[in-house]
């Protein structure tokens, strides 16, 4: 699709969507949001970009291959569950950083898990979108 208006809008909207997706990811533990929702918003940004431009540029936007993204997310999520092991807690138990942080942000393995989910969703959906767009 070659539409100047669409392309210009996409250029403006994509960063906003990505920022919003990160916001959703970070607020997810105690309020609506989380890794999956955040990941989907990022996918929406990516899909918009892939539609406005072409698959090659969308791939360039991603930087790394979708497979790498998915794999990193998968390992991160599994690793965050495994971290509880090292602390002698049951698998997947949440560990929290005890140091008080200035913002209302709690750091812990649950956040790592959410980041993992975010990456898996983004990677897998990007892979599907690119396959459809390039096919």
């Amino acid at each position, binding site marked *: 699709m070659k539409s100047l208006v669409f392309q210009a809008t996409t250029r403006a909207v994509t960063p906003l969507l990505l920022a919003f997706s990160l916001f959703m990811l970070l607020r997810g533990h105690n309020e609506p949001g989380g890794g999956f929702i955040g990941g989907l918003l990022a996918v929406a940004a990516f899909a918009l970009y892939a539609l406005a431009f072409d698959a090659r540029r969308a791939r360039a936007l991603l930087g790394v291959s979708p*497979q790498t993204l998915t*794999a990193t997310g*998968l*390992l991160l999520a*599994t690793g965050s569950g*495994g971290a509880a092991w090292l602390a002698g*807690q*049951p*698998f997947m*138990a949440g560990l929290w950083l005890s140091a008080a942080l200035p913002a209302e942000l709690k750091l812990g393995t649950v956040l790592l898990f959410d980041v993992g989910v975010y990456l898996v969703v983004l990677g897998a959906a990007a892979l599907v979108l690119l396959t459809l767009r390039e096919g």
Partner: protein
Amino acid sequence: MLLALPIVIPLVTAGLCLLVGRRVRVQRALGVLGAGGLLVAAVTLFARVWREGVLVLYVGGWRAPFGITLVADVFAALLVLAAALMHLAVSVYSLADLDGRRQRYGYFAFLNVMLTGVCGAFLTGDLFNLYVWFEVMLIGSFVLLVLGGQRAQMEAGIKYVTLSLLSSALFLAGVGVIYGIAHTLNMAHLSQRLAVAATSHPGLVTAASLLLLLAFGIKAAVFPLHFWLPDSYHAPPPAVTAIFAALLTKTGVYAIVRVFSLVLPPSDYLFGLLAVIAGLTMLIGVLGAVAQSQFRRILNVHIISQIGYMVMGVALLGSPDAQTRQLAIAAAIFYIVHNMLVKSNLVLLSGTVRALAGTEQLSRLGGLLNRAPVVAVLFLLSALSLAGLPPSSGFWAKLGVIQAGFRAQAYLLTFTALFVGLLTLVSMLKIWSAVFWKPAPEPCSSDDALPAAAGTPPARRRALLLVPSVVLLVLSIGIGLYPPPMLATARRASRELLDRAAYVAAVGIHAEQVEEGPFRAEVHP
């Protein structure tokens, strides 16, 4: 801790395989290493369960029935062990059987995703979690099925994906209805609450049971839900068919055994239905094989008929005699393990024949007894094991099922089982004579030419193809010649399965949680 390893190891292996990208050598090494690691974890888990009894892990520290619980009893640990063994055998075989392109595009990653789902399904103690693991397994199997992108694979893929998703949707609906009845999803907790609900809401419980039976029936490929299997299993390479034959339908059978022995209240209606299904599955499967003329397809249709024997074991749970019930489930468990070893080995051997002769068409095969005597002997012994002749694991598996059938006085079903055993033998001999015995037909034109495996030299390739088969056959014959350990394992697994109270206590569900009753006041506004 140990309990989560069979899920974590394949998942991490899958992640690493994806991460290394297109480096085939690294992926191959990771695939075999991961499978080996899984086997070690499975053996350790089994030994621990055998020593200490049912193991329970509250994931995330949330106690049952609130969180997700992983439970390993002897049955679950045994199947994880068998799955890990098959995984290693097929991973090694794949090194020689699969072309480099498939390996590059994530074969080992998705094989491990599938194993994650299978092990998760065996180990979970939560009905909804079982659904989730089924889906993980399905996604892995979807990709394995279509990896390579040939037209036949796409067609098979569409059928398989549609039927699998239909099955998932039915499972989900069943879970929804069960949650509506019992307001819990923990299997042990459900076991108690559904027993109460069965008297107050028998219709709803039966409806939910039927939804689950339909869903698992599609996965296990029982009659009349079996038709997708022969049409989709022959499309991918033999290594993929072998792991499918070993794990996918068996996971469906596992779910049937688990749900009917633990979760659902006993019902004569359902056990009667299962008996009819078992008999027809055996019969239709073996008759369907007669019509086939291609090596691997015949074996695939036999998968269906073999499932019938396992379901027969579950159907005999309807017997009023406790000892018969125990014998029946023990026989079904023995049969599942035996079938995983032998059936997949036959598929692997058919792949080896394909690699040697360049075709799977019976009419164009022949004379392999002279060309490849080792393969011929391996096939003959495995085939006799499948048909249930001594000395092999198949003999004891069939003997157990038939003994239980006679004790339950299910004569028609038992005679069907015996008759189907005979037909299986005939069908195996048909393959034997066509592939190995009869003289080779004129020049083997190979129009379905084989892609060579990623640059493996022939001698090494042959070894990689044959070693897994030899190991599996030795195991099968070993069980046949000295059955006591396996019989003891099956008996203990069956004793544990039928003792619902002990399972419930092991998971940590206490009696007072039942007394509040399955129905809560605010349900209907």
